C-alpha cells in the first residue's frame, strides 16, 4: 500500500518530477542571479526522484500479482507489470499542466515556494500514513530538504526585490 502512496511524490502534481522539470525550465528566463539556484535545486529534485523510484521499486519488485492487487496496484500491474510509471497515488498519469513558467521572476519564484510547501505537506501526510520506519527516515530527510529549498527561494525573492528597489533610485 505504501508503494502506491509514494507514487504521489513520483508522478503527482506536487511530486519530485514536477519540481525538477519546473525549475529546470524556468531557469532560462529567471534573472542571472538566481539561475544557479534553480539549476542546483532542480538537479537535487532529480536525485530525489531517484530516491522515490528506489523506494517504490524495492517495495514492489518481489510482490506477486495477488499482493499488488491487495495493495491497490492491480490496475498498475496490468498496464505496467513491475515497471515504475509517472502516475500519482490515484493512478493518474503525470501532465505538464501541473506546472507553470510565467516568465515573470516573482510569479515563478512564488510558485516555486508554494511547490516546496506542498511537497513538504505531502511528505508529512506520507509519514503519518506510513508504518515503515526505514522509509520514514528517508521521507523525513526529503521533508527537511523541501524546507531548505523553500527558504532559499524566499531569500531569492528578497534578493530580486532589493534589486528592484535599487533600480528605482538610480
Amino acid at each position, binding site marked *: 500500500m505504501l508503494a502506491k502512496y509514494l507514487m504521489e511524490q513520483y508522478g503527482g502534481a506536487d511530486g519530485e518530477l514536477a519540481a525538477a522539470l519546473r525549475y529546470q525550465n524556468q531557469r532560462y528566463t529567471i534573472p542571472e542571479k538566481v539561475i544557479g*539556484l534553480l539549476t542546483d535545486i532542480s538537479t*537535487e529534485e532529480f536525485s530525489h526522484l531517484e530516491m522515490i*523510484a528506489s523506494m517504490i521499486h*524495492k517495495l514492489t519488485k518481489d510482490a506477486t500479482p495477488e499482493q499488488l492487487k491487495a495493495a491497490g496496484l492491480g490496475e498498475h500491474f496490468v498496464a505496467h507489470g513491475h515497471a515504475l510509471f509517472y502516475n500519482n497515488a490515484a493512478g493518474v498519469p503525470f501532465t505538464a499542466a501541473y506546472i507553470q513558467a510565467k516568465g515573470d521572476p516573482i510569479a515563478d519564484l512564488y510558485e516555486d515556494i508554494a511547490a516546496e510547501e506542498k511537497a513538504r505537506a505531502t511528505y508529512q501526510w506520507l509519514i503519518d500514513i506510513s508504518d515503515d520506519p526505514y522509509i520514514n527516515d528517508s521521507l523525513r530527510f526529503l521533508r527537511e530538504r523541501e524546507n*531548505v529549498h523553500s527558504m*532559499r527561494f524566499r*531569500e*531569492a525573492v528578497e534578493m530580486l526585490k532589493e534589486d528592484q528597489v535599487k533600480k528605482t533610485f538610480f
Partner: protein
Amino acid sequence: MSEEQRKLLLELQIADFNVIDWDLYMHTHPTDMEGCQKLTEITKYAKKLRKHYESLYGPLTILTPRSCDQVSCTPWPWQV
C-alpha cells in the same frame, strides 16, 4: 558489498550532501565569507574522499577514467 565499502560510501554521500547544501546557501548569501570558506573546505574533502573510494572500488561517474569492462557494472545506486 563489504561493510568497509558501505561505510566509505556513506561517508562520501554525507560529504557530497554537505557540498550540495552549502552550495545552495551560498547562492543566496554570496557575501558570507565564513560560508565561502566552509564550502571550499568541504568540497576539497569530498573530492579527496571520492578519489579514495574510486581507487578502491572503481569509478562512480563517467568522468573517472576506467577500462571498458567497467562501463556498465553493478551495483547501481538503487541496488545497494
